[in-house]
């Protein structure tokens, strides 16, 4: 790529002094300080960060790169040594000239111990293995071992580390401590205190990341129990992130509880569509049914979190009312059709529309590619175009006031008016005066945005593509069933100009098809312009035509997207 001038690169941080340490005999150079996961302030680099820097795994429960360090689970214990110093404060050398290392008689927790120059970290000694085995034995003493009915089974760190580092049998002959099971912790979470390993990740997350000091540990010793304050349910817009953070099955999502064994879930990289932030998610689906969203790490967008509002907003995808048939209406009679016969009819009708008599409304929930093709169509007819603004309260973390996932894309493609929605009145007026005779609507119920059923009835041709039936599709001459984002590929541009792609997780139902596909069929007949065949090609073509996207390619989007200036 030649001209990436407009792609923002993150500012290069001031150079930090580097330290050389050895991990299991391999030398690694790491910065002396690293930004704190919560505050971003530089703090001394720890052993676990040095190990991760050269991809050496150190098992850990309480440590999380985006939470304050607690150092309570001891799973990350390692052995280490530091260069021996003579009385002259000079390193003592071995006969072969290498620095003599004094091995510390005691282990250290890798998550909270800063590194020092020349330090050697040993993660794989018999002692370390013995300690891990011991910690796991302690953790399992009061654990109920109810993996067969536990939602976390299959993605549980207690299971995984037990396989890797645990013992094959238990020596515990005494009676286990019982704790509350099925605690209704809040409107979206059920807590099983017996499974909790007291890592305090949930407490730290809600206190230090969300700013809602809602959870704590009560009682003492083996009776330690996670709880919210009695009568004060755990309810903030980020509460479900604690379910992701919980290394075991203590915190479970009411929404996902007992729905599906996680190992059956296919994971697809996608985006949340519930606001303009565009949090990166993983869609968990099985046999064309979607079961959950989980946040996916993206430092420039959502760190590792997502909000509950977006996470739970997916049930519409499997709404039994979904539009699954192409419908053609002549007067009052609507007939079920199919793509093969409906498309030529539609193309013919569109072809006869005179320039200046057409309006196009494309939702800012459509993909950038769809909006781009709609804009092509609109330009052919010199159509008035717009999108529908959608807003709601923003919060202090991720949730944006713009509830459209692709407002920026609608602006980039020129489909949205400035400001968005300002052309809707003009379109209504045009229909009333009889000037606009054809209306193409993608993804919106325009009767709720000032273009009422009485106006729609005056149109010669109303084309509506949508996912769910609404007052507009009810009146449309052509109803084209479209796809939810999890049923297709495409890109959204978030409110900050982050261009991100999402992949297809499940097949659409019935005759529903990705909008890009049927738009691509329509365009050559109506406008004479043929779009590139592949979605990749279409994106690249679009990026070439839209100034703000100059130099961006589908391939360059990767998993985490590209920031452009808006």
């Amino acid at each position, binding site marked *: 790529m030649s001209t990436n001038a407009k792609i923002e690169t993150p500012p290069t941080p001031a150079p930090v002094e580097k330290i050389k340490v050895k991990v299991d005999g391999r030398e690694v150079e790491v910065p002396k300080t690293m930004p704190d996961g919560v505050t971003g302030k530089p703090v001394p680099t720890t052993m676990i960060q040095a190990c991760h820097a050269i991809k050496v795994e150190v098992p850990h429960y309480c440590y999380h790169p985006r939470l304050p360090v607690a150092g309570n689970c001891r799973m990350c214990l390692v052995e280490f040594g530091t260069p021996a110093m003579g009385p002259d404060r000079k390193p003592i050398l071995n006969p072969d000239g290498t620095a003599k290392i004094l091995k510390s008689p005691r282990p250290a927790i890798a998550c909270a111990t800063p590194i020092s120059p020349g330090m050697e970290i040993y993660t794989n000694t018999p002692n370390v293995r013995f300690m891990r085995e011991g910690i796991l034995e302690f953790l399992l003493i009061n654990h109920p071992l109810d993996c067969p009915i536990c939602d976390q089974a299959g993605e549980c760190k207690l299971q995984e580390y037990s396989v890797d580092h645990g013992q094959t049998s238990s020596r515990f002959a005494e009676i286990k401590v019982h704790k509350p099971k099925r*605690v209704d912790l809040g409107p979206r979470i059920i807590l099983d205190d017996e499974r909790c390993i007291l890592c305090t990740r949930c407490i730290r997350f809600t206190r230090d990341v969300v700013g809602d*000091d809602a959870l704590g540990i009560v009682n003492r010793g083996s009776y330690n129990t996670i709880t919210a*304050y009695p009568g004060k349910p755990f309810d903030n817009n980020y509460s479900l992130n604690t379910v992701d953070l919980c290394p075991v099955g203590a915190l479970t999502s009411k929404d996902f509880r007992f729905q599906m064994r996680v190992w059956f879930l296919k994971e697809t990289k996608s985006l949340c569509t519930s606001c303009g932030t565009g949090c990166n998610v993983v869609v968990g689906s099985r046999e064309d049914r979607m079961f959950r969203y989980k946040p996916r790490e993206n430092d420039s967008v959502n760190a590792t979190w997502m909000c509950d509002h977006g996470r739970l907003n997916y049930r519409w995808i499997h709404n039994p009312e979904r539009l699954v048939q192409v419908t053609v209406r002549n007067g009052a009679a609507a007939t079920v059709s199919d793509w093969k016969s409906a498309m030529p009819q539609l193309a013919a009708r569109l072809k006869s529309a005179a320039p200046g008599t057409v309006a196009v409304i494309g939702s800012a929930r459509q993909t950038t590619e769809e909006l781009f093709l709609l804009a092509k169509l609109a330009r052919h007819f010199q159509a008035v175009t717009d999108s529908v603004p959608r807003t709601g309260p923003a919060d202090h973390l991720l*949730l944006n006031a713009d509830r459209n996932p692709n407002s920026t894309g609608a602006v980039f493609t020129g489909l949205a008016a400035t400001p968005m929605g300002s052309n809707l009145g003009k379109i209504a007026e045009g229909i009333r005066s009889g000037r606009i005779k054809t209306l193409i609507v993608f993804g919106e119920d325009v009767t709720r945005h000032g273009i009422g059923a009485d106006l729609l009835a005056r149109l010669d041709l109303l084309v509506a593509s949508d996912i769910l039936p609404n007052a507009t599709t009810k009146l449309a001459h052509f109803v084209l069933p479209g796809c939810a984002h999890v049923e297709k590929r495409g890109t959204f541009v978030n409110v900050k100009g982050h261009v991100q792609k999402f992949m297809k997780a499940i097949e659409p139902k019935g005759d529903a098809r990705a909008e890009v596909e049927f738009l691509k069929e329509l365009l050559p007949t109506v406008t004479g312009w043929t779009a590139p065949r592949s979605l990749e090609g279409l994106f690249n073509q679009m990026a070439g035509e839209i100034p703000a996207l100059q130099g961006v390619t589908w391939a360059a989007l990767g998993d985490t997207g590209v920031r452009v200036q808006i």
Partner: protein
Amino acid sequence: MNPQTISTPQAADAGTASAIPIPNPLCEQPDFSVPAEMVAVLDELITHYPRKRSASLMLLHAVEERYGYVSRQAVEWIAARLELAPINVYELVTFYPMFHRQPTGRFHLRICRTLSCALRDSYKIHDHFCRKLGLDPHGHGAQTSKDGMFTVEFVECLASCGTAPVIQCNDTFHEEVTLEKADKILEGCK
């Protein structure tokens, strides 16, 4: 610091029918109020600490001393005084056995059960008290007699191991306690 609650689509609520509410071991004390003089003393006390939170235990002690227990209302009052979330104070109340979550009797008998006292039969004294007062000798934690007069409870070392076994009745210390002495102590509680 309460983050906005955003209306969230309804969760499926699968398998939540049998969910239990958040356990609440705290007692209600509807008439809880702190007299102005005490508030003044406590507020002054708070100024001794670098952070308000550090005064948590002192406030809890003051409340326990005055009312004999720490109620839900008391926890919330202390939290508000120290600008904390109630959960922070609640954690402390459940951690330290010296704070009681149920009202205690007029006479509070604390029997040491740490090594020296245990070796010199403090368990028998506990047993004796319990039987006399109609309490369960094997019961866990503090127990209060039906008439609300006595609370009996084991405690750890009272720092007079040389004169074991020792017990404390309210603020009075009794050393080298025998069963006879124990009866006298009970009789003296009027």
